[in-house]
């Protein structure tokens, strides 16, 4: 929706994590015994429920808080979360509500058409960028205001995690000129 610069970059959303509350206590044991496609993690006090249709895995706590991960879009995440709540309702927890739905984290990948020189990039973006090749092959770049974290690889691939899809777009737009300057031109 927001215009890219001149270049059309494909931002691929790989993971959307969201949370919501059911506003009621959940009997994990009952969910584990009667639900389908569930894994009971008794030691951690949660039940994992996997859905096939929007491919999501949800962690369910007895407090009624549910974290839903694995969706590929925000719409999908919401749909999956609602399906999950519906599933719990069918299990017998009539009081289940779908409240306080919030997308917590979005993971996206974007590939630049050029390679990047990371040492140069890091030097020119000193406080925000950090690069430890011995630890991790990518340079880490944080944008504080939108709370986005970008991993810049020398291949030109950039991994972005941000609270929402919109912020991801913003982050990509911000990083593009910085990366463009440090690109490797074919010699």
């Amino acid at each position, binding site marked *: 929706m927001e215009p890219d610069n001149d270049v059309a970059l494909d931002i691929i959303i*790989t993971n959307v994590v969201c949370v919501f509350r059911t506003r009621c206590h959940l009997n994990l044991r009952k969910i584990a015994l009667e639900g*389908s496609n569930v894994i009971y*993690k008794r030691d951690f006090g949660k039940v994992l429920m*996997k859905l096939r249709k929007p491919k999501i895995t949800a*962690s369910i706590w007895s407090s009624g808080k549910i974290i839903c991960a694995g969706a590929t879009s925000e*719409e999908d995440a919401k749909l999956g979360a*609602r399906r999950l709540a519906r599933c719990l309702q069918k299990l017998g927890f009539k009081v289940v*509500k779908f409240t306080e739905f919030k997308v917590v984290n979005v993971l996206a990948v974007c590939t630049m058409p050029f390679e990047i020189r990371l040492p140069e990039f890091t030097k020119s973006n000193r406080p925000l960028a950090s690069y430890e090749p011995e630890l991790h092959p990518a340079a880490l770049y944080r944008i504080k205001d939108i709370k986005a974290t970008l991993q810049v690889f020398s291949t030109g691939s950039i991994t972005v995690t941000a609270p929402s899809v919109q912020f991801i777009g913003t982050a990509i737009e911000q990083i593009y000129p910085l990366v463009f300057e440090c690109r490797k031109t074919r010699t």
Partner: protein
Amino acid sequence: MKIPVSEVEWRTKTEASETEPLKTCGKNKTAACKMMMANSNPVPKLYRSIIEDVIEGVREIFADEGVEEQVLKDLQKMWESKIMQSKAVEGFVKDTLNPSNFVLQLPANFSQALQKTASIVIPAGQNVQNFTTDMNSTGTSATFTLPPGVGYPVQIPAGVTLQTSSGHLYKVNVPVMVTRAPGGQRILQQPIQHLAEQRNQVVGQASIVHPNTIPVQATVIQGFPSQRKEVFQQCSTQPLLQQQQLVIGQGVQPRPAAIQQPIGIQQQVPVSQVLMQPNDCENHKSVETPRYTQQQAGVIQGSGTPPLTSDQLSSLDDIPDLQQFITNQSSDTIEMIHKDGGGGQGVGVETSSKSEYGDAKTSNPEYEVECSSQVMIQTKDFNYNAIEDILQLDGTYDTSSDEDVGNMREVGGNEFVGENEFMGAIDTEDLKALEEDRSSSTEKSSSDGEDDEPRVEIIEEDPLNSGDDVSEQDVPDLFDTDNVIVCQYDKIHRSKNRWKFYLKDGVMSFGGKDYAFSKAIGEAEW
């Protein structure tokens, strides 16, 4: 345990495994093969033991409560009948059979016969039998060990020597059908006595049975539609012991019985008589001084299988005496056949009269099998002094193990061992997402996520309840089968959507049948 096989599969295995070792047996006359059939069914025994344990356990409680013993018996009967009605267990017979190892020793040249007789045919509905074949250096014939709890009737091909766990040897010259008959025991009593007497007389003597002089009379155990006949030769360890000769003859061409073997002579006189069908086994007679073994050389076979060699005979020394008890229909006279002689001709005789030694070859093609009322081979009912469970077709059996549980739903009280999968799940999901090539258009839902948040609580509460179409979880409903496993787990492992199950000590209901296993390994994809 492997997943148990159906009857059909079992038969396939039976035939296959029968022919293979027999081929080697054919080459080596002194070779003894044991065939191992891995198709026993431990479930009936297991269930039976469970029932008995429970009944015993509550017997006291019932008594304390003042409940009658009859109620307890009714409970047990109802339980058993329900199990049988459900048909979930194969061969769950009410009467417990005395399990005894029943070892079949085949003559060396039995391979031909056996190959033609194919597998030992078990009537449908009977318990699976296990046949164990090993290369036995000492033995001279193929040895089958039939599992305990085998159901009756059982067909035994010709040329098989049956040996009970007590060591008595029965030579089967004619394909036999072994069933249980309550009256058989009585029938044999007399002949046995008579035989005992005869034997005493005969011991140490070479007696010659002249052909045509000794109408062989064999008690027909059962007739075969295939018109094969088997002769059971029974060896008893002691001459004084009651000895049975069980011979089933049918469809054997009459021939002058010419089984003559002086005692101590390790050769066999070819018996020209009774010929069973060419495919049938041969009767062998071997004579041993203290013990009586009858063998007919090349008698019943169309093939020129040589008589048992001295090797075989010597190997049979360890075996109790064989006696043949032959009664035929065609003749009413029963004459005692001395140890040596084995009147080859099968003569139909009432079993109530004296029994005869000799190989039973049915003389009359139209020889009809004695009705089952004269079933000679019995399991529990026999009270012979020497022979207890004659022709108990029991033996060792394997337990089968399950594999590839597949999409079985596990119902167990065990909880899963926890792994910290939450973080792992996210990571794997991320990685999976990264690995997968997803190209989605750049979806940038603008401020929907955040703007809706204050409204979410109000709006979403209602739609959730009415949003029935939101939850379409029909796929799991397909999963609801009646196949259930109740077991313990060693390890349950999951990688992404690949599951691996390492289970132990369980029972399962699969396809309406019950199976038990001590170990089960399964793989599944979700």
